[in-house]
């Protein structure tokens, strides 16, 4: 499903101060089945953008359209959260089945569907475990299984692998790619990692500091299916340097702007 982000703006009111303009007139289009990574300086409004796409809070102005259909709710999307957001008193299988439960799917049926997605992520053995019994990597596999089980048109991923160790991250990246290649969902993936973005994405969008806009729209040329081996491609280093330069400029600008705000 094609996602059109059309001139959206969002600001937060702060008592006794100018409103904080987080996103202003941001536009972007994500094609059906495309994997798009978003990188940008810390605090630039990436998560706010994701929240607007996920129906958590509406934009002040502008619109998000899914294949031309304007929507206010998150029914088209599932978010994969950085800190997993698994329900601690539920077993993994009942966590994964929550979207179906909310839609009124009978218990046996939704558990069967959830088990299928647990198998996809290779964690069916932990169906009855509680989230807090699992490692970070296992929890995020459950988080992805939960997002898939709700069968969304668009997967929104908010730095999903930021909290796991490097080895696990590499595994999860490869697993995500293989899942994506089978399901062909549209994916919007926020990350801090340039390498992660180049490994995963068809396109990388670099955002500026607040109010955030797109400063770079880079098409990643590597063939699919990809593995972690793409880092050995000579173009990889080149693109990495290029993206880092754009990100550095954006980050420096954001830091200067913030310093000015503080001293003003």
């Amino acid at each position, binding site marked *: 499903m094609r996602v059109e982000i059309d001139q959206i703006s969002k600001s937060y009111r702060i008592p006794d101060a100018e409103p904080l303009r987080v996103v202003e007139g941001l536009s972007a289009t994500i094609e059906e089945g495309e994997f798009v990574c978003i990188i940008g300086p810390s605090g630039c409004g990436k998560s706010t953008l994701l929240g607007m796409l996920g129906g958590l809070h509406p934009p002040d102005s502008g619109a998000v359209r899914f294949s031309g259909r304007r929507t206010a709710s998150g*029914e088209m999307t599932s*978010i994969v959260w950085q*800190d997993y957001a698994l329900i601690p008193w539920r077993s993994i299988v009942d966590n994964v089945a*929550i979207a179906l439960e*909310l839609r009124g799917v009978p218990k046996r049926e939704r558990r069967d569907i959830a088990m299928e997605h647990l198998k996809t992520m290779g964690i069916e053995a932990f169906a*009855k475990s509680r989230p*807090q019994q699992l*490692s970070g990597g*296992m929890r995020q596999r459950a988080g992805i299984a939960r997002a898939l089980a709700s069968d969304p048109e668009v997967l929104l991923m908010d730095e999903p692998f930021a909290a796991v160790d490097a080895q696990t991250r590499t595994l999860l990246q490869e697993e995500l790619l293989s899942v994506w290649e089978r399901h062909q969902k549209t994916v919007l993936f926020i990350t801090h990692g340039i390498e992660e973005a180049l490994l995963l994405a068809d396109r990388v969008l670099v955002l500026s500091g607040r109010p955030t806009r797109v400063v770079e729209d880079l098409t990643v040329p590597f063939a699919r299916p990809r593995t972690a081996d793409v880092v050995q491609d000579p173009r990889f280093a080149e693109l990495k340097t290029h993206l880092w330069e754009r990100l550095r400029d954006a980050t420096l600008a954001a830091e200067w702007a913030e310093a000015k705000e503080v001293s003003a």
Partner: protein
Amino acid sequence: MSTTISEKHDETVVYGPRKRGDTGPSRAFRVMASPFGSLVPVFTILVLWQLGSEAGWIDPTFFPAPLDCLAALRDLASEGDLASSIWITVQRILTGFALGVVPAIVVGIAMGLVPWVKVIIDPVIAILYPIPAVAMLPLLLVIFGTGGTPIIVLAGIISFFPSAVNAMAGVQQNDQRLVQMARNMGASRTQILWKIVLPGALPSIFAGIRLSAGLALLGVIAGEFLAGSDGIGSLTWQYWQVYQISNMYATLAVIAAMGFGLTTVTLRVQRRFFNWTEGTTR
């Protein structure tokens, strides 16, 4: 629990040399920390007390030997008075507890969910909570007359507050990430309430219930001391007044056993149903 992997919180790690078969302080600690292990120091004190009495180091006028108290307890039990007193007191505790805790949970949840309910009720609680509830007993006697009713109402009032405050806190401290997750998954407000907010508040609500249970016992015993004509508290008080110290200790032991039973049962329930709060990482 057989599938625990990679993150174990409950293992004691000891650095340094250990002898073979040495189970170390962790095992002794586990035994002592269990409800029945906690009886070990109590039992030790009782033995010392008994020996001290027999050696004549302890004045039996104030501290009759434990075995004498046990004999007194046996006599009281055989007279049949004790069982009926216990039953009266247990009924008062349960009734007062239910009378206080059920509305407390409803009010607490409402305060946590609806801002204007909190604005109205919070100041009332802030004023009433610090008043020692026992101080209301004369008022309750005026309103309800003598008999069991003012005692039950006193227990109800005492047990109201912790449950109300904990229920409110439990609802207010719900995990916003889970709420956002549920909203993204398309949950309605009612679904968020029933599937996220209320289950998330349960451990806090139950912690309040535990406090209330202890206070209901306290309220009933205090009420029976001061205004009761029956019940185990009243019996204790009578034995003090007629100076039957062994009997007084026997009834005190019964009250202590009630408290111990209450604590053990509520702890069991907590471990059974709310084990997910242990080792939860945010």
